[in-house]
Structures are given as C-alpha cells and as structure tokens.
C-alpha cells in the first residue's frame, strides 16, 4: 500500500430540492475534524452541479444527503454523469431517509454505502478513511 501525505478530499452536499441540512453539516464537520479536506456544496444542487464540482475539485469521494424521497432518481443521475465523464473512480456514498428496501438496488447501481438515521459519526469517518484514493 502506498502512503500519500495529501489528505482525502471529499465533496459533501445536498442534491435536489430538500433543504434539511442538519445531518449533512454534522457529517461535513466530523470529516473535517478527522483531517480530511471537505468541500461543502451548500443546498439545492443539481446532479450536474455536484459532478462538475467534484471533477473540478478533484475529490476522492462524494457524500450526498437526501431526505426528500428522491434518492432513487438523484443517486442514479449522479452515477450516470460521473460515468459519462469517465470519473467512475470517484466513490459515491450517502445518507438520509432511505427505506431499507431501496438500498440493495442503489448499491447495485454503484452507491458504495448508505448511512441511515442514527449511524454513529465515527462509522462514517472510518468508512471514508478506508476509501481508496482516486488521485
């Protein structure tokens, strides 16, 4: 395993119309406190905006929070756009109000992990730390 000095770069964002940003901000903070470089997109991002920012900022992973029930559409759209740009190496993970029965299909589509309500922040930090670097 190669050891690089550069910290992981993670894009954390809210995609779609949903404005509930309590969770996403806690996660952005926890990752930052764990020494990662966090790019927080703010609210109401389209999948196109998220993917453009991710590529411009050369991130290792994208973490998206969706509480509005639009997860099936929005995660898939982000994955499609990444793949269209040849950026499949950027890991996509997420969280929010996502029914268990939707999880397998999203993972199948390429979402690396989905964290439901009540997930300890440490679990998310550990998951991100163990990610392979895309750069």
């Amino acid at each position: 395993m190669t050891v690089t000095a550069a910290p992981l770069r993670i894009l954390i964002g809210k995609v779609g119309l949903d404005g509930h940003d309590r969770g996403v901000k806690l996660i952005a903070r926890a990752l930052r406190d764990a020494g990662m470089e966090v790019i927080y997109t703010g609210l109401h991002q389209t999948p196109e905006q998220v993917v453009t920012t991710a590529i411009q900022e050369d991130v290792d992973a994208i973490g998206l929070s969706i509480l509005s029930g639009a997860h099936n559409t929005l995660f898939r759209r982000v994955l499609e756009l990444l793949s269209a740009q040849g950026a499949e190496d950027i890991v996509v993970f997420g969280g929010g109000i996502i029914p268990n029965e939707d999880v397998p299909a999203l993972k199948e589509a390429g979402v690396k992990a989905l964290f439901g309500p009540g997930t300890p922040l440490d679990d998310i930090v550990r998951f991100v730390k163990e990610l392979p670097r895309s750069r």
Partner: protein
Amino acid sequence: MKEMKERKPRFTSLSGVEIHRLYGPDDLKDWTPERELGAPGEFPYTRGIYPTMYRGRLWTMRQFAGFGSAEDTNRRFHYLLEQGQSGLSVAFDMPTLMGLDADDPLARGEVGRCGVSISSLADMERLFEGIPLDQVTTSMTINGPAAVIFAMYLAVAEKRGIPFDRLGGTLQNDILKEYIAQKEWLFPPEPSLRLVTDVIAYCAQSVPKWHPISISGYHIREAGATAVQELAFTLYDGLTYVEAAVKAGLTVDRFAPRLSFFFNVHNDFFEEIAKFRAARRLWARELARRYQPKDPRSLQLRCHAQTAGCSLTAQQPLNNVVRTTVQALAAVLGGTQSLHTNSMDETLALPTEEAVRLALRTQQIIAEESEVANTVDPLGGSYYVEALTNRLEEEAQAYFRKLDAMGGMVAAIEQGFPQREILEASHRYQREIERKERTIVGVNRYVEEEERPIPILKVDPDVERRQVARLSELRNTRDSFKMARAVAAVQEAVACGENIMPPLIEAVKAQATVGELCMALKEVLGTYREPVVL
C-alpha cells in the same frame, strides 16, 4: 445540600440547563402567582389562553398528511376524518414547496414523494373533493409560494360558492424560519416579508376566520436548536412579522388576534411543558410592552404542536410510539390548541395508514382515557415547572436583546447568527449521544443486533409521469392569452406595492400554475443565496 451519592455528577435538561435535586420556595423568591400566572384566559396567559381550556373543548387533532397525487391525498383526508380527526393539514411535495411545477426539470424524482404534488387549480380542486371547506378547518404547510397556494384554496371555495368569511384554517406562511432552519425560500428575506404582510392584510380584510401565518419553531428545533433557541427565535420572528404589518399601516388589533404559532415537543417532558407556558407569557408581555393593543386577544399566543420528528429512531421503530406518547402528553399539559402526533415509521418513509391511525389513537387515549384534560394547567404552581418557565423566559429575553442589537431578525439571518447558534447546539447534542452522555434507547443503549422490519408506505412511482401529462394537457387547452395577462397583472401589482392577493386569485382562476406564478414573482422580487455556515 448534603453530600449524597447520585447517578451523575450533573443533571441537565435537554437544553443544557442545570437541574437541581429539588425545587422549593427558594427557587421562586420574587415570584407571585398574580404577576407570573394570572387566571387562565387572563394576562399574562401562563396558564392557558382560555378560562376553561380542555374542559370547554379538547384540542384539535390534526394529522399532517400528503403524498402522491391530489387523489391519493384526498383519499387519506377522507380516511382521517372518518377516524375522528377534527381538522386537516396538508403536506406538499418538495417541488410545490419550492414553487416549481411537476414538469420542471428540477422536480425530477421528487414529485409526490414527501407530500402531495399541486401545480394547478385543478389539482387543488381534486385535493379537496368532497370535503366541506366551510365545516372543516384546513392547515397548509407552505411558505415560499404560500400566497399562490392560498389563492388556489380561495378560488376553490369561490367556485363552490362558499363565502370567504366562512373559511377557517391556517397558512404556515412563515418565511423567516425558512432562512433560519428549513431552507425552502424563493425570494430574498425583505420582499418575502412583504408577501407575508400582504396575506396578513388580505385576511384581516376578507378572510377573517383564517390564520394567515403560523409562526413556527418546529423546524428550528428539528434543525437542532434547543428549547430555549426554539422559543427565542420563534417569538422574535413573530415580533418581526408584527412590526412589518404595523409598518405597512395595519393596527395591531386588526391582525394580531389571528396570528398563530407552531411548536415542537421534544423528549424533555418538563422543559417542554415550561416552554409552552413561557411562550404564552413572554408573547403577551412583549406585545403589551411594544404595541399596547386594546383587544386582549392580540396578546394571546395560540399554538399548534407536533411531536419531535428528530427524536424518532430508525432502530426499533415501535419505540417511537412511546416517545410520541410522552411528547404528546407534554404538549397537552403545556396547553396546546392543536396537535399532530408523529407516526412510528417516519424515519423510514411517509407514514402508512396503520401507523397514522395509531398516532391518532395516541391522542385520543390521552384526551379521553387519561383524564389529564379535566383541569386547566395541572402543573401550575409546581416549584420545578415554574422555575423552568422563568428560566426559559429569561434566556429567550437574552436572545431578544442580542437580536435587537444586531438590527433585527433579517439582519441576524444575513449574518448567519441563528443558523450558527443552531448548528452549534446540534453539534453539541450529537456529541453527547456519540459519547453516550445522553441515552437514545435502541441507538446507543439497549441496541439489538437483529432489527425487525415494519411495513412502510410506497408512493406510486407513476405519479410523476401522470402529473407531467396532466400539466401538458392544461398548458395546451387553457386560454394562454388570458393566463399571461393575469400573470402580468400580478407582477404589476407587486411592483406597484399593491396587495398581491386579488390579482393572484384571478391568475390561478385563469389557470396559471404554481411554477409560472413563482417564476414571474422571482422576476420582480429576485432570488436568494444563503450565507453558508459550517
């Protein structure tokens, strides 16, 4: 006090207030019941806004509901009314809340997902099919596009020949808490405030039994605020709306009796009860001091309450029934006028019919079996509850002074002040849970490895396609010239500083959609990007 071993070195409320072993007369030194309590229905209304409270009439049981198409939600409304619910409450989907039509590219994947999709007057008619609007009161949770949705409701009533003075209900229409917490705005704060004021003025004139605004702490709390912050920011928002309406030329007694509030009820039982009592007293005192109204109803804080969605857990979801029961009881002992109890499955999806029925039954059991509704303010005079009530009032006043010094709520929002205070509180709370300093049963203690799944609601994925098709038909069949002229009239009224409601009602009758009207308003009023606080 004597050294004795206790379970913890320090006991604190959910807001972080230190709680003593025992409360007694020393905790209420300068306190007199005449000044701090008064009689129920009398200044300062600590004990409740009505002399008889629930002996006269129980609170309104009002379950927030909406999903899929207007027909889906209409069926749920009829079901809830058959089950003994006493008022309706509409949940709109994200596109509607953001002023977008179902066929907007930004709405993709979101139509009907977390509420009902309403783009046109025809949708609104379907939503209230078979519901007697002059007999049932309706609450509508809508903020950015509140005036547009209200215009649609009024147009439906007009079509059915129901005079506006027989319509009762509530429009949430509280835009300040959107910038503070829920983040669903369309325009910048100042022009948004002006639209709120237009609705208040219009109701005072033409829809006298309507509550034109529900000043909401619920979402502030859900975003992570403490009880103190919820109380302070909500009441200060209320004062901001009053000031805006007075500046627009309304006398306080013309509209203040129709203002209503909406609070969260979280887990800390006594602190929550104290919050409702402190809210009534503080509102009455502040309004009396700042505006000297003549009508006592102007001083009365009426409120709706909802149990805390953010307190529910995805783990062991049946436990949520118990949490909701405790919270609902606190709202009742706090003297709320209406109540929504959350369903146990709401951390997973929108609630199923079964889960909603259980939540409604929870209220019915409190109301009709527990006998707690037999007397007014049963905890009044408790040393502990009175000391907490005082403390919450004092801490909220400290926030008022800070907000005054910042130049008011709009200025504070633009500086990110309430947003930052809430973020810090939410971070503190999360850290306490992670360190197991606060127990969440099933999450950080009494964890079960095997989770037993419960059934959840699935929204028909075809709703979006059907809504898009309907809209396309509407756009092809309506009189486009008439519609465009009506939309231009709305823009003109707004640009000239006239009340938006009359031309808006005409525009929705001319079949202009929510998205078209909101877009037209953005052209006149502008858009907004928040200062990012992290």
